[in-house]
C-alpha cells in the first residue's frame, strides 16, 4: 500500500503540470489584456505597452509559462496584478474556508446519502423508497442558487433559526488559527461559544452544497445494496438464521460501499466548483469568490494559482478515496 501511495503521489506531478499548461493556454486564448485593465481608466497606449513589458506580458507564451513554472517550483505564486497582495497569502486565508464548507457538505452528503440509500433499499418499493426516489430526482434537478435562497427565506427570515450569511456573526473574533477551520480551531481553543456560532453559520451553505451529492450517494447506495442483497452469500446467511438487520448492516452494507465511495471522490471536484455559487450567496469567504474576481479581471497569476491548489486538493482526495477502498474491500488492497 505504501508503494501504491508513493506511486499515485508521484503521478500527481504530471497531472498538475498538464492542468497548469492547459489553464495557461486557455487563458491566453481569451483576448483579455491584463495590462490594459491594470493601466487604469485613462491610460495611454504607451503606458499600456510599458506595463506589458514590466510584467513580461510582451514575451512569448512558452517563455511566460517557463518563468511562471520556475516561480511556482520555488513556492512563490507571486503578487496579484491588481491588489499587489501576495496570492499565496490570500489563498492560505481562503482555502480553509472553502475546504471547511466542502468537507462539511461532503459529510452531510455521505452520511445522509448512505443512511437514506440503505433505508430505501431495506424498505424497497415501500412508500419511503418512493419518497426517497422522488427526493433524489429533485435533489439533482434543483438549481443550487434557488435552493440557497429558499433556505435563507425559510430558516433565516421566517423562522429566524439560523443566520443568513457570513462565516461568523458580525463583530465576532475568529479563533486563533491552527488549521484555519473555525469549527476545529474553536474547539482546540476550548471556545464553545465560537464553535456554536460557527456551526450555526455553516449549516445553510453546507445543506445547499450537499444537496446534489446527497442525492447521488443515496441513489448509488440504494442500487448497490439492492444488488448485493441478490447475492448468494446473503441468501445463505438468511437461511442460516442470521437476523436480516445484522446481515444488512455489517455484511451487505460493507460489500456495497465501493461504488458510493468512488462517487465521494468524484463528487468532491463538483462540490468545489459548486461552492463558487454557494459562497457568493452566503458571503462565505472562500476561494470561489476569489477565483471569480480573478477571472473577471484577467488576473492570470491568481487564476493559475487557484487552479493548481484546487487540482492538488482534488488529486489527493482521490488518493485517499482509493486507500479507503482498500480498507473497505481487502480484495482491492491485494491489487494495490
Amino acid at each position, binding site marked *: 500500500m505504501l508503494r501504491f501511495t508513493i506511486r499515485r503521489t508521484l503521478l500527481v506531478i504530471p497531472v498538475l503540470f498538464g492542468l497548469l499548461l492547459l489553464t495557461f493556454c486557455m487563458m491566453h486564448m481569451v*483576448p*483579455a*489584456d491584463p495590462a*490594459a*485593465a491594470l*493601466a*487604469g*481608466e*485613462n*491610460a*495611454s*497606449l504607451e*503606458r499600456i505597452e510599458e506595463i506589458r513589458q514590466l510584467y513580461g506580458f510582451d514575451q512569448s507564451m512558452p517563455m511566460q509559462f517557463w518563468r511562471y513554472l520556475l516561480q511556482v517550483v520555488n513556492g512563490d505564486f507571486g*503578487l*496579484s496584478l*491588481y*491588489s*499587489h*497582495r*501576495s496570492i499565496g497569502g*490570500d489563498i492560505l*486565508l481562503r482555502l480553509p474556508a472553502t475546504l471547511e464548507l466542502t468537507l462539511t457538505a461532503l459529510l452531510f452528503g455521505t452520511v*445522509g446519502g*448512505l*443512511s*437514506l440509500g*440503505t433505508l430505501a433499499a431495506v424498505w424497497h418499493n415501500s412508500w419511503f423508497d418512493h419518497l426517497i426516489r422522488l427526493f433524489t430526482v429533485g435533489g439533482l434537478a434543483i438549481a443550487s442558487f434557488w435552493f440557497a*435562497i429558499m433556505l*435563507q*427565506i425559510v430558516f*433565516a*427570515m421566517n423562522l429566524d*433559526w*439560523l*443566520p*443568513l*450569511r*457570513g462565516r*461568523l*456573526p*458580525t*463583530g*465576532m473574533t475568529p479563533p486563533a488559527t491552527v488549521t484555519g477551520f473555525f469549527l476545529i480551531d474553536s474547539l482546540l481553543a476550548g471556545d464553545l*461559544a465560537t464553535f*456554536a*456560532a460557527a*456551526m*450555526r453559520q455553516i*449549516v445553510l451553505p453546507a445543506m445547499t452544497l450537499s444537496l446534489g451529492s446527497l442525492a447521488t450517494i443515496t441513489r448509488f447506495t440504494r442500487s448497490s445494496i439492492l444488488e448485493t442483497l441478490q447475492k448468494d452469500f446473503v441468501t445463505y446467511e438468511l437461511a442460516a438464521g442470521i437476523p436480516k438487520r445484522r446481515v444488512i*448492516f*455489517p455484511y451487505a452494507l460493507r460489500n456495497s460501499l465501493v461504488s458510493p465511495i468512488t462517487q465521494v471522490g468524484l463528487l468532491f471536484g463538483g462540490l468545489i466548483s459548486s461552492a463558487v455559487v454557494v459562497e*457568493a*450567496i452566503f*458571503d462565505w*469567504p472562500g476561494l470561489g*469568490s476569489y477565483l471569480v*474576481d480573478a477571472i*473577471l*479581471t*484577467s488576473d492570470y497569476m491568481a487564476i493559475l494559482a487557484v487552479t493548481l491548489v484546487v487540482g492538488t486538493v482534488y488529486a489527493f482526495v482521490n488518493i485517499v478515496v482509493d486507500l479507503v477502498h482498500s480498507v473497505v474491500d481487502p480484495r482491492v488492497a491485494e491489487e494495490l
Partner: protein
Amino acid sequence: MKRHVFPGLKIAALFACLLPLQAPAATPKTDLVWGSNLPRALDPHVVYDVPMQFFMLNTYDTLYRYEGNPPRIQPWLAESHTVSADGLTWTFKLKDGVVFHDGRKLTAADVAYSFRRVLTLKLGPASAFSAYLKPEGVTAPDARTVKFVLSVPYAPFLAAVPLIAIVNQAEVKTHESDGDWGSKWLASNEAGSGAYTFDIKTYRPQEIIDLYRFPKHFMGWKDNPNPVEVVRAHTVKETSTRVLALLRGDIDATDSYLPTDQVERLKKAKDVTVAEDESMRTLLIRMNNSRPPFDNLHFRKCLSQAFNYDGFIKVILKGYAVRNPGPIPRNLWGAPADLAGYSFDLKKAKAECDLAKAEGAPIGRKLDIYIMSEFDQSTQTAQVLQADARKIGLDINIVPSTWANLTTMMGKPETTPDMWVHWVSTYFVDPENWIGQMYDSHFHGSWKASSWYTNPKVDSLLAEARRETDQGKRKALYEEASRLVVADAADIWIYNTIQLRGLTNRIKGYRFSPVGSGGEIRWISIQK
C-alpha cells in the same frame, strides 16, 4: 448483544443538539454595518475603483474634496490654492494642525511624496495625471506649501486632485522594499489621517474592514455631535442576500446600485428606506464609427432613433434613471441645457437606414453588440435595441463578454466591436472625464474613446477647453463640442443613473455625492 445505532442518526443528533445554541450578539447596536463591495486591496494609489472610494474617503484625506450633489469641490487639507497666468504652476497652501493616525503631523512633504508615489507607480489614479505631470514637477518649498509644475496647461487638474489620497510618508517609507514604494505593505495596511482609522487585526481582504472613529481628525466633530464610533464593513456579494440582510437588520446599508425590482420591495417594508440620488454615471451604446456601416452618418442616426429610450427607462427601469441625450451628464456644467438628442421613432429610423443603404452602406450584414454579462442592465439594453432594430430589418447579434476582455479589444479599430454597452462613472467631476476623453481623437486606443470618432473641429474645441482656465469659457466650448458630437450621432446616449441605496431607518445624516456614492461615514449618526 450490541445494539447497532445507525451512524447517520448519531451525527444528526449531534447537529440537532448544537443548533439551538444561540450565538452571542457580537455587534453592539451602536455599530454601523455597511454591506457593500470592498476594495481588492487597501493601497489607494494602486487600486482605484468604486469600492476603494469608500475606504479612501473614510481613512484618508485629500487636498480638495467633492461634497454634495451636484458635487462641489472644496478645500479639505488645503486652505487655498493659486494658479499662474500660464496655467502651468499650481500652488496649494495647507491647513495647520492636521495629524496622521499615528499622531505625526501632516506636512507638505507628505503631499509631495504621495503625488510622486502615484506618478512613479503609474497605477490606479496615475493615468489622470501622467500626460501632464512628472514626479519631479511636485515639490514642497516649505512645510505648508506644495507646488505643482505641469508640462502643459491642464485646466481639469484641480478637478483631478481629489483622486490622490495623502499618505504618511514616514510610515510608508519604513515599509519600502526593493523600490516598491511600500506598495506590498500598504496593500494590507493604512497610513492616513482620515476621519476613521482602520483595524488591521480584524481585516480580512474583501470580506471585513472594521473602522474606528478618529477623534483627532482635523475637521473636528462639531458638525456631527453623534457620530458613528465603529463601522463594520462587510462584502455582501449577491443582491438577494443584500436585500434580505437589510430587511433582517443584519446590515444597515446596501450598495448604491440596487436593482429596480428590489426597490419596490424595500419601499413596502417597514424599518428600511431607499435613498434615491441622481448621480453622474451615464449609460451608452458605443458604435465603432470607423467600420462600415457605422461610418455612415445616416446609419448611426438610424440606430439612434431605433432605441426605445422611454420604454427602457419607464418600463424596464421603472423610472429609476433620467434620460441623458448627450455625452456629458445632464446635471454637470458643459452639458447644453437645450440639447434634445434623439428620440425613438422607427419610421424616421427606417428612412435614415434607407438613405444609408442608398449610399452603399452594408446595413444588411449581421451587427454585433457586446455586453458585460455580469451586469443585467447591459444585457437588457442590448435586447431592447435588438428587438426594435429587427422591426426595420436590422440583424443584431448579442455577444457576452467581460470588462477585461472588452477593454483589450478597444486597442485597435479592427478589434473594436461594432457596438458595446457600458457606463462612464464619475472619477473626477469635469466634462473632460466624459466628452474630453471620449471624443478627442488623441485618446484613440483607450476604451473611453472606443467609438473611433474623429472630428477636427471637436478635437480643437476640446484641446482649447483643456488649456482654458476660465470656467465660463470652458463651459461654452464643451457645449459647442457636445452639439457637434450629438449631430454626428457618434454613439447612442441613453440615461444618467439614479443611485439606489437601501438603508435602515436608524441611519440619520446620510449624504450622497456622485464621487464616493454616499460612502463618507463622518456625516452619519445612528438613532439609538
